[in-house]
């Protein structure tokens, strides 16, 4: 019970991702971001592994900062990922902390699908819905 799809948004991309846990839904959400950049994630091999640690004041901000990190890594190191393992999301005092291991490789326009550049992650209509059935996330990416 995990996955993502895109909802209709006039100008930008709104993604809906879901998973049984917050970690799983966050990971699907990151994959939905990667898919905008390069549509066939299966073409990405695993030559690079990175560990990420993000801290923020609430879950929405944690997601915003986590996803923004992928845009930074893409611009600076040119890396795309198709394996996003979120090991934990914990609330420590008044802060949320996420730890993840991600695997992928350098983007190569001759090997990978050339998608659309994502300018930024937005808070617009952001929604993280947690229930007994699982977690659903709605978020808009600025194109």
């Amino acid at each position, binding site marked *: 019970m995990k996955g993502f799809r*895109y909802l209709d948004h006039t100008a*930008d991309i709104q993604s809906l991702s879901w998973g049984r846990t917050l970690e799983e839904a966050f990971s699907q959400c990151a994959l939905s971001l990667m898919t905008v950049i390069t549509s066939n994630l299966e073409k990405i091999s695993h030559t690079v592994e990175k560990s990420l640690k993000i801290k923020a004041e609430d879950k*929405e901000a944690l997601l915003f900062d986590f996803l923004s990190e992928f845009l930074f890594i893409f*611009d600076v190191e040119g890396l795309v990922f198709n394996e996003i393992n979120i090991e934990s999301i914990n609330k420590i005092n008044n802060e949320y902390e996420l730890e993840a291991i991600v695997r992928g490789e350098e983007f190569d326009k001759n090997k990978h699908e050339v*998608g*659309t550049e994502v300018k*930024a992650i937005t*808070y617009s209509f952001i929604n993280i819905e947690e229930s007994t059935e699982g977690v659903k996330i709605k978020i808009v990416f600025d194109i």
Partner: protein
Amino acid sequence: MNVNKIEENIYEITPKALMVRLQGKIERFQMNVPVRIYANEYILERIKQDRTLDQISNVACLPGIRKHAIALSDAHQGYGFCIGGVAGTDAETGMISPGGVGYDINCGVRLIRTSLEEKDVKKIMPNLLDSIFRNIPSGLGSKGKLNISYSDLDDVLNNGLNWALDKGYALENDLKHCEENGFLMDANADIISQKAKQRAIKQLGSLGSGNHFIEIQRVDEIYNENIAKKLGIIKKNQIAVMVHTGSRALGHQVCTDSLRNIEKAMKNYQIRVPDRELACVPANTPEAQNYLSQMASAANFGFCNRQLITHWLRESFQNVFKEDLDALDLNLIYGVCHNILKIEEHEVNGEKMMLNIHRKGATRAFPPGHPELPQDYKEIGQPALIPGTMGSASYLCVGKPKAMELSFGSTAHGSGRVMSRSKAKRSYWGNQIKEELSKKGILVKAASIQVIAEEAPGAYKDIDQVVNVSHELDIVEKVVRFVPIGVVKG
């Protein structure tokens, strides 16, 4: 949403309470001013199809907002503010909202005229597009050809087009014919995050992707010959080039950083907003001043980005046509910013006051005589550039006095989308669009075939109707209509 027709092309939503779900809780917000929508029936019907009106109603709730929150005729759903949105807040106590400018700070458009005619360009078009495509980096993750140091980057951020002029990438006339002369002086490179600098250092002089483009256009119709002549447009089928791009990741990261900074600060000022993307603080706070300075720096990067592209365009034309600049002209008619915040004087209820004018997907359109206009355009008004899609027209207009009364001196910035990118991809094939455009005499060269489908002309509103609303309201006067014959997409 209750939308009342005030008069032809003017609609209004009267201030009311909004009930909004925020982090699972329903909260109440009050609109402080009415929403104004400049549209005809065709456009209003399309605007109502998405959440544009919810978004501009949220903007009307911002503390210190004056007169009205505006959705222009190209308005569509964005994030936080709608796109095609204008809002003015009190210069001292009113809000400064990074979301009211957007991530692509100083995204804008330039129009460069040539002395060439369609017949000179038509046959050689594939070579010309190839040359431009090779010479100007475009598409996903595109990086500029310049290898600049971090201290050069600081110069760009602090000095805008003055840097480009010093380095030989600009002509003096480029500065004169650019909004703000291509330089916002509140810039301060020292407060820009290392992250923003790292993301952008390789991107100076690149087009990016999405809706950004370089278009070779021909003059299709001249509506006002006198004004057109003053702008150097003298005949039908004369060739001009339009460039649309912004400040790349520099602007994106500045907005991201500032949004996070401001949303943390707003709790201290007891400010609540109906959408977290509208995070804002009063203008007279250190956080707002910090954003304005960062925004100015990003805007300077945007000016230089379009300038380098212009420089390389000039090179490509000279190489392909084997003629020099004097013969080819290639002078800048004008350059506008359409995602920016300016502190401007406007009249509200008969009283002159300074306002923080947020333009998000809106083009400044100042009337004749305005002090901000370059000397040679004082009499005709500020050129306002409104591009269409790769399959439709683009307009060169000039600002009129009515713009000051109706829209804080602003007009639309493009056609405005009506269809989502995902639906466009389901509805169109990139290659088919390319073929159809080619039958219409428009050659397209793109870094991504997927982007052609996303940017299909059918995904946008009818540009002629969008511009006609501003023209009929006398916000602007149409001067020249251009149609594309060659397109480079990122």
